[in-house]
Every structure is written in structure tokens, then in C-alpha cells.
């Protein structure tokens, strides 16, 4: 078995009396899409937060690229190549589409401490930013204000910003949230390509998307992993069918 890129080991997080994650262990292997599913409030975003460093776990560890990163800040993890997208778009709405990806490329390159030269004229950065836009098909909108583009376009921009980090792993929290059928189809095709670049831990509601993209699936319910395995295994797991897929039998 190949060494996982990213893994969690018995992560536990409590909010007061509520156990949002209870001893959650999972891993992400090279080249795969690992889907994390579960009903609303199951603790998926909490897990993502702990993986990326925004939430400090009560117990357990996070490993990334063979190192224990549990004590590392969000920034350090991002700089070592953890590319995150947010469930609610986290973009600079007043800035242009291009500026948002330039910002990502600047952060990744660590060239932010310049006070006089124009950011948009750094050709290396700009090229990287434009490539990311190209990948997600937003090149034509580069000069628009981010607040003016559609929700679906913003979801793709969110992915483009993560791309500028040249990530070693993607962690995407419901990237399709609020997308129509057409938008979902386009983004699904994009993620299918992206897995060649870096494996994707994908939190997703849409079961069609999950079954078409995922190599493996982990099911979370009330903060606990109730099932994990290949897509076929999960599809036929009786407990999952009962608890999550809402089937009678």
C-alpha cells in the first residue's frame, strides 16, 4: 500500500457537551478522491477545520506528507501544500477575479512583503494566477469584480485560488454547494482532472457526484465514522443505506 499523503488519527473535538468528532481516523492516498459524507451537523466541517489547522483538536493527530502537523498553524500547513476550499466562498469580493488568484500565488511564493512595486506586474506570479483561472475556465472573467460574478463562478474561483498553492493535497468542503445541475457537472469534470495533480478529500452532499468521483468514501454520523471503504462497499453497506441513504430495507 502506498504511503498516505494526509491522514487523521483518532481526532476528537468537543464543543461543550457536544462531541462534534469522535476518534475520527481516515487517510488520503495519492491520486484518489476520498469523499466524506454524512448528514448536516455530522461534523464534516469540524474535521476539515482540524485538518487545515483552523480548529484545534482535543485529542488525536493529523499527519501531512509524513510529518505530524497537529501543532502547526493553518499558515504553515498551507505553505507545505494543503490547498483548502471553503464551504462558504472565502473570496475578496471587492477585488477582481484575477486579484484573488494573484493573492493566492503571492501567498504561496511568499512575496507579499513588497511595499512599492505593483502586485499585478509580477509576471511569474501573474502567469501562475492566470494558469489557475484557465484551469477552472474563468479566464474571460479575470477583470470582473468578484462580487459581480455568479455563485457558480465563485465556487470555481475558490478552487482556482487553492490551485495557485500548487497543493500536495486538496481539502474541499462542499465545493458544489448551491450549484445547479450544469454547474455541478462542470465542477465534477474539473475535480476529476485535478486528482492527477493532488488527491482530493471531498466533503459532498450530492450522492451522484460522490459515486461518480470517489475512489473511497467515509461516512460520518453524529461525529463518528460509521463506515469507510471503496465506493462499491459503501453503496451496499446496509447501515449506511439505512442511516444515510434513507432506504427502507
Amino acid at each position, binding site marked *: 500500500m502506498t504511503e498516505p499523503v494526509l491522514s487523521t488519527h483518532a481526532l476528537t473535538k468537543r464543543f461543550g457537551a457536544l462531541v462534534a468528532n469522535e476518534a475520527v481516523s481516515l487517510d488520503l492516498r495519492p491520486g484518489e478522491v476520498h469523499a466524506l459524507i454524512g448528514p448536516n451537523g455530522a461534523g464534516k466541517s469540524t474535521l476539515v477545520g482540524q485538518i487545515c489547522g483552523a480548529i484545534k483538536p482535543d485529542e488525536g493527530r493529523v499527519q501531512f506528507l509524513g510529518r505530524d502537523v497537529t501543532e502547526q498553524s493553518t499558515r504553515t500547513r498551507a505553505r507545505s501544500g494543503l490547498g483548502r476550499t471553503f464551504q462558504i466562498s472565502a473570496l475578496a469580493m*471587492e477585488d477582481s477575479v484575477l486579484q484573488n488568484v494573484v493573492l493566492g500565488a503571492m501567498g504561496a511564493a511568499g512575496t507579499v512583503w513588497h511595499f*512599492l512595486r505593483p502586485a499585478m506586474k509580477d509576471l511569474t506570479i501573474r502567469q501562475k494566477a492566470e494558469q489557475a483561472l484557465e484551469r477552472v475556465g474563468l479566464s474571460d472573467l479575470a477583470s470582473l469584480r468578484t462580487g459581480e460574478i455568479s455563485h457558480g463562478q465563485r465556487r470555481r474561483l475558490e478552487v482556482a485560488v487553492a490551485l*495557485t498553492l500548487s497543493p500536495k493535497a486538496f481539502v474541499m468542503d462542499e465545493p458544489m454547494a448551491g450549484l445547479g445541475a450544469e454547474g455541478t457537472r462542470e465542477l465534477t469534470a474539473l475535480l476529476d482532472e485535478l486528482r492527477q495533480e493532488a488527491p482530493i478529500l471531498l466533503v459532498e452532499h450530492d450522492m451522484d457526484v460522490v459515486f461518480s468521483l470517489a475512489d473511497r468514501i467515509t461516512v460520518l454520523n453524529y461525529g463518528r465514522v460509521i463506515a469507510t471503504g471503496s465506493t462499491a462497499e459503501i453503496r451496499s453497506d446496509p447501515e449506511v443505506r439505512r442511516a444515510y441513504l434513507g432506504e427502507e430495507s
Partner: protein
Amino acid sequence: MSRESIVNAALFALLIAVPLGALATDEPFIITLATRAVILALAAVGLNIALGIGGLVSLGHAAYFGIGGYAMGILAFHAQSYTPLFEGPFVIEGTKLMPIIWLVAICGGALAAFVIGLLSLRTTGVYFIMITLAFGQMFYFFTISWPAYGGEDGLSIYVRNSFPGLNTLVPIQFYAVCFVLLCAVLWFNARLARAPFGLALNAARQVPHRVEAIGLDPVRLKLVALVISGAVTGLAGALFADLNRFVSPTMFSWQMSGELMVFIILGGTGRLFGPVAGAMLFVLLEYLLGGISDYWLAFLGALLLLVVLYGRGGLVGIFAGKARNHD
């Protein structure tokens, strides 16, 4: 040319035409008034770097303004009384030289902003406003109770400080000095806003968690912004004290911080020339209405209310339309 740059050019032209006109018609008082506007504008430009780009609502910028003022006051006081500022293994003398005074004011403002920033940037929103306000008040009460430099009465400096090659006692020459400094800082501000730092700071205001997710520290960005901001406002403080040839604890008062905020809101938050427009209008109204009625600040309050309610971009916004921070 965008509409905003036309508005900026018009304000710039006014800042040249008014003092020159006053010079031609021999109205030194108008030149002094213009100098006051330029210096207050400079102080507010400093605040606008923190507030406009970084979203830091600091209600304690009088601290940096006052530090600049006292840097001038203390240095000039020791020079005019021929007493050393510090005696020990080595001696520090006072000085009447503007460039040295400015340097001290800039460093003092920056240092204070660094310390205040370290302590206050752990908080956000109302707490940040309150903490910065509290720091400003600390300086205010400290200078009031510190007898060495005049306490509550302040310090008078008999002769304006000097600048090599100029006679700063001539109003138009002192105006020129202040105007050139304002232009230099506005140039810096314009570059800063477009530089990588400005882009990142602007994003740290809008989506701090995103900035972190791309490997940057939003708090560090804001701290640096505050330091630059404090340095600029400190410089303005030294000029303000030089204009009045007087420095007192009122430079540290919360009303002073409030006025700087008012200039920005009046002129346009985050707009390059917003604080300039705001300070110019303030000084004009103070001159026109201050003579008629003691309650002119009530008029100002009403005006501010109108601008906030109906002219969301401030004066610059009314004439130039919505802000575009990209090209």
C-alpha cells in the same frame, strides 16, 4: 483618466492655487489655514492606511499625532533652553532641525503603533476600537500629569524649527514643506495600495480566514499597516506642533482621534484623496462657520450624517462614483 483621478487632480490643484492666490493677494492667514488643512490631511492619510486598506478602526490615532507633537516640542524645548535632553555616559542634545525632528516623530509613532498593535490586534470590532481609544487616553493623562514638559499647559516653542535652505518663518515656505510631504506620502500610499502588501492587507480586511489558508498571517499584515500608519500620523503631529509653535496634551485627546476619523468618513474611506478632501472641508467650515457660531460642530455633525446616509463613498464618492480598487 478615471473620474476619481479627475477629482484627485482638482483637489491637488486647489492645494496649489489657494496658497498661491493668498500669496498674491497678501493674505498670510489663508496660507496658514491651508497649511493646517494639509497637515491634518496628512495625519488622516496615515489613519486611512490602517482604516481604509486594513479595516482597522483605530480611535486612538491621537496617540501617534501627539507623540509626533511632543517629539518636536521636547527636542526644540531643549534646543531653545540650551539644556541637554539626556546626560549620562553620552549626551543627547535637543535640535531645531526639522529633518531630525521628523525622523524622531516617525520612529516614535511607528514604535508606539507597534506596541499598541501587538496588544490590541488580538481583538477585533468594538473591542479593538475601545482598546485603541484607551491607549490614546493613557498618553493624554500621562502628559497632563508629567510636569517636566509643561503638563496641562503644554510647551511653547518661540521660533519655528528650521529646514536647510528655507526660511520656515515665511508662511508659504512652510506650506511648501508640508505640501511636499503630503504629496510624498500620498504617492507612497498609492503605491502601497497596489503593491503585494496592499493587496494582501486589503484581503485580510475582507476575508482573514482566506488569507490564512494561503499561508499568510492577517494579524502580522495588520500590525505592519498600523506601524506605517502610526509613522505617518506621527510625522503630521510634528508638523502640526511646528505650525502652532505649541504642543499640549490636547493633541492626545480622543476628540483629536475622532476628528481624524471624521475627515476620512467625510472625504471617503479607503479613497486615496478621501482624507485630503475631508480635512480641507473641515478646515473651510471651521473657518467659515466657526466665526458665526460656537455651535458650528453641530452643523458638521449634521453634514456628517448626510454624507453617511446618502453619500456612502464620502465627498470623493459623490463626485467620482463607486470605488474601483482594481484595474
